[in-house]
């Protein structure tokens, strides 16, 4: 993909832990096209949030390092930029919203100030211009009475409102890329839908590309065009959303799909309920690089080859790639 806006290549991130390292991300590659929405799914600890944070280089300075790979954006490798160069891109060309709207805004500054300071930092606008822009942004994310809300503090807003403020903040400088790390996980289901619709609307209007990190396949199905599935720090499957849902190939993805509840499964007449399918076993610990396929210990189809050789992420058709020895190609 030569037209990609962002290209992550063979990214590996490790955390120092005790005397050794935890290999949180191990050889992740993906590309993001202009205006595209890419979903990254996986369960807790699979490395999806670490991948997201590493793009903006927001991992803890001490203890975490990108020890292999590249993050290419606009002709430069973000993994190698200085902190100063990086801070010019953050909030400007690359933005991020986080899982916890309750704690992600500064409690002692007004929301207007928090949006305006980003605009001032990157656009060099005057205080009044920046504040006017902040109010426009609050209106854009459909916060009623934006002018008054801009003078309020985060504790005066509800969770859903705060996440809207975060979105306004992230989009204030019209970034090329918005990274949304579980943006709806902490919200009520009704608010979740509103926030997702809002992100999709704004994206259509501004042409911002979105990386949506989630553990919720439902969210992916509703909003993303393409999706990558991560497991134990690696990408195990990458496909357009329609292809992935119609025809999941990796045993882990198939397991995830089976673990989704379906409406027609609900309460038959006799009152019994079918248990949700689960994937047996536990996520492996990442204290040392995993030999072979990371999913092999939990996989019913695993062979000796699976346990010793790491499967490459190979195409099974032009748009669908899977890292599994057992999938015929």
């Amino acid at each position, binding site marked *: 993909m030569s037209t990609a806006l962002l290209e992550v290549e063979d990214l590996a991130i490790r955390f120092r832990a005790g005397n050794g390292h935890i290999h949180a991300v191990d050889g992740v590659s993906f590309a993001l096209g202009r205006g595209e929405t890419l979903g990254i799914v996986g369960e807790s600890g699979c490395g999806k949030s670490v991948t997201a944070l590493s793009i*903006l280089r*927001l991992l803890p300075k*001490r203890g975490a390092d990108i020890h292999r790979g590249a993050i290419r954006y606009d002709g430069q490798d973000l993994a190698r930029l200085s902190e100063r160069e990086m*801070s*010019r*891109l*953050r*909030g*400007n060309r690359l*933005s*991020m919203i*986080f899982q*916890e709207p309750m*704690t*992600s*805004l*500064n*409690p*002692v*500054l007004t929301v207007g100030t928090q949006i305006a*300071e*980003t605009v001032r*930092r*990157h656009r060099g606008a005057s205080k009044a211009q920046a504040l006017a822009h902040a109010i426009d942004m609050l209106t854009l994310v459909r916060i009623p009475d934006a002018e008054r809300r801009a003078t309020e*503090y985060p*504790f005066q807003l509800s969770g859903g409102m705060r996440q809207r403020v*975060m979105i306004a*903040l992230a989009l204030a400088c019209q970034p090329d890329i918005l990274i949304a790390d579980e943006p709806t996980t902490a919200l009520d289901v009704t608010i979740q839908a509103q926030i997702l619709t809002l992100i999709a609307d704004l994206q259509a209007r501004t042409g911002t590309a979105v990386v949506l990190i989630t553990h919720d396949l439902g969210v992916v199905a509703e909003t993303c065009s393409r999706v990558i599935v991560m497991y134990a720090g690696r990408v195990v499957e990458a496909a357009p959303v329609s292809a992935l849902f119609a025809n999941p190939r990796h045993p882990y993805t198939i397991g995830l799909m089976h673990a989704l509840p379906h409406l027609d499964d609900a309460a038959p007449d006799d009152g019994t309920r079918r248990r949700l399918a689960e994937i047996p076993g536990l996520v492996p610990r990442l204290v040392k690089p995993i030999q072979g396929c990371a999913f092999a210990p939990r996989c019913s189809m695993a062979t000796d080859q699976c346990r010793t050789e790491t499967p490459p992420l190979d195409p099974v058709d032009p748009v669908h790639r899977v890292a599994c020895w057992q999938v015929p190609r």
Partner: protein
Amino acid sequence: MAAYLLRRLLAVIPVMVVVAITVFMLLRLAPGDPAAIIAGDEARPEDIIRIRAMLGLNESIVVQFGLWVGRLLQGDLGTSIFSNLPVTTLIAQRLEPTVMLTITTLTIAVVTAIPLGVLAAWQARTIIDRIVMLIAVLGFALPVFVFGYVLIWIFAIDLQWLPVQGYKPLKDGFWSCLESLVLPSTALGLTYMALIARITRASMLEVLDQDYIRTARAKGLSTRRTLLLHALKNAAVPILTVIGIAIALLISGVVITESVFNIPGLGRLTVDAILKRDYPIIQGLIIVFAGVKVLVNLSIDVSYAAFDPRIRY
């Protein structure tokens, strides 16, 4: 806010009543006849009778207390036994050096401690952090009189940059006054600097772990703005609290410093009064100190709201 202030000011009254009772009882609880205590070991009986009459000790204790409080409310703190001057006059004479010393000490402590604390928290667990904390521990451990004499030896005797001792009043010029306060307030300020720096570091460390600091970084804000606005404003409440404690401690802390540097302030007045058992002065000073502490606490509590909008009165 106004209602809160009024409520807090009203709450000052019972505190001061307790202080007044304690101070009044001070003289009466001491074993023996207060008049005899005041008169000293070599007093003649006539002296004791004279002093007893002067102090109104022939009345019942309730009447004595009533009369005493009545005068107190009119701003009359009594008369010094030795100099025969009103205690209010004596305190007023000694007020300026102590107030000036407190202000300069606090300024030095706060202006150095907060940047050091922020720096240490930002560079936590690095060599810079260790050095700052080492200074803080030393500053806390070093007694004022030791550090004071070291400063005098280096800057006054050896280098002769600053006066050895004494205080030059404000009316003789602002700069000469300030010059006379540099060494004493540095000596005194070191302890408070250490105290405030440690609290600043601890409070900042907690704040720097918060999600909104990550947001500030994700917005591309400069390190300076992230630390000094986003983090420090959130860390302010514990820092303010400890500054309030520092002010309260300072008022009693000046006693030693004023002796070392020979400054004629309230600290010296206190020491002299205790040595001479000049009870009216001691009583007056305790009431003034208690009143100042109560007011300092009140202003610190009110100032929290300026830093944290979630605090409303």
